[in-house]
């Protein structure tokens, strides 16, 4: 048979395309449930990791409800709206107008203390970057942070998912008085006494800047909610302070 005839060439191309397309579709559809489960477990794992609970991905399903006590969806005014926070897809939300976005918020409890976990998503050098930042119950001090990325440069920008980059976030502050400062990733190093900055990654400046922008943009969206619940938190802390004064007084009297 002459394999260089036009009709054969077209026929070969057509058959090849159909066979390959069928093969890949079957593979994609049959593997989809396994892949979705991995992605879901990884999200739970990342949320837990942002409050310092590091576990295997397989254990995430069981451990998640132990620590995460509340899931909220907020609107741009900081009001609670209907919805499942875990299922909110930030990729889609970020494309919407600011006033239409749903803002997921996770509230966890670790060792008797409350943390507010805010999901993040932004742009790196080659593709999306995302993560979770958790705040302590004063809504100012950072409890922990995790980051991940789709396709940052290995060894450079891709290092944002490494502990040496993530760990310095804990203990930093996002507010200077009433003003939201967020946290900057500083090229050349931030210095230990900088409460609003962490060290950048050499050779990963654009990814580092992406993290800075992402944090500022996302935290700004939650400001109305912070302002709304802050008075309550302050009242609570005054109450607990008064409680301790009472015990001190009691102990003096006794």
């Amino acid at each position, binding site marked *: 048979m002459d*394999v260089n005839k036009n009709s054969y060439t077209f026929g*070969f191309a057509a058959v090849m395309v159909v066979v*390959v397309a069928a093969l*890949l579709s079957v593979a994609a559809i049959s593997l989809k449930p396994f892949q979705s489960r991995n992605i879901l477990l990884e999200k739970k794992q990342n949320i837990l990791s942002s409050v310092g609970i590091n576990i295997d*991905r397989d254990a995430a399903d069981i451990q998640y409800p132990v620590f995460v006590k509340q899931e909220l969806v907020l609107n741009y005014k900081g009001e609670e709206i209907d919805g499942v926070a875990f299922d909110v897809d930030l990729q889609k939300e970020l494309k919407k107008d600011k006033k239409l976005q749903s803002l997921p918020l996770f509230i966890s409890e670790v060792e008797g203390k409350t943390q507010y976990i805010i999901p993040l998503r932004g742009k790196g050098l080659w593709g999306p970057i995302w993560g979770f930042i958790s705040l302590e119950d004063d809504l100012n001090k950072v409890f922990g942070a995790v980051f991940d990325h789709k*396709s940052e440069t*290995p*060894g450079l920008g891709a290092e944002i998912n490494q502990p040496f980059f993530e760990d310095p976030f804990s203990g930093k502050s996002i507010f200077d008085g009433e003003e939201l400062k967020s946290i900057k990733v500083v090229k050349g190093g931030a210095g230990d006494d900088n409460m609003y900055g962490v060290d950048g990654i050499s050779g990963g400046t654009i990814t580092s800047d992406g993290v800075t922008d992402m944090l500022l943009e996302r935290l700004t969206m939650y400001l109305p909610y912070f302002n709304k619940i802050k008075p309550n938190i302050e009242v609570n802390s005054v109450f607990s302070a008064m409680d301790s004064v009472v015990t001190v007084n009691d102990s003096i009297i006794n």
Partner: protein
Amino acid sequence: MSKDSLFAKKNMKLLSDPLDDNNPITVQVLGICSALAITVQLKPAVVMALSVLVVLSVANVIVSLMRNMIPSRIRIIVFLVVIAALVILVDQVLKAFVYDVSKELSVFVGLIITNCIICGRLEAFAMANPPGKAFLDGLGNSFGYGIILIIVAFFRELLGAGTLYGYPVLEKLGVYDLGYENNGMMILPPMALVTVGVLIWWQRARNEKLIENN
């Protein structure tokens, strides 16, 4: 016609030649793009070498099996379809069953498809040889590619970050206490080119077959 055993001496040369005398990177200067992009650390270099090994060997066998059916005018397109389909398939399976490896690899998938070594071997070898030989040729060339990747990554990670496979070798050896500092330039792409250049220089000075008489 007596059929050569697949492991005859002649066929073994298919495995050994690409390691040195006919190395795809340092002699044929193919696949340089990925050699520059992913040799900052050893781990991705090893992962990349393994994935190229799988894709190249299997693609070589598939194309070799079809070599008498492929119309010559669209052969490059056929190669690309075979390579791309394989890469996607491998990626999907990894995502489903070994998620961590797939995260490590995700960036390189595109690079595997565009790796000139694969297209080069399909065109130069698999189109003209039976599947057994094509398989050996695929293995040989992947090893030749992988060995250079690993050597370059070894030096870049050691000198640039002071670690090997993520393990802080220099810190444990106490080299920093003597005043040594990591060379930040090693982690930037140009130094990969320089490292490959030094390798080529060293190889040509040592291997007599590669010395050109002019």
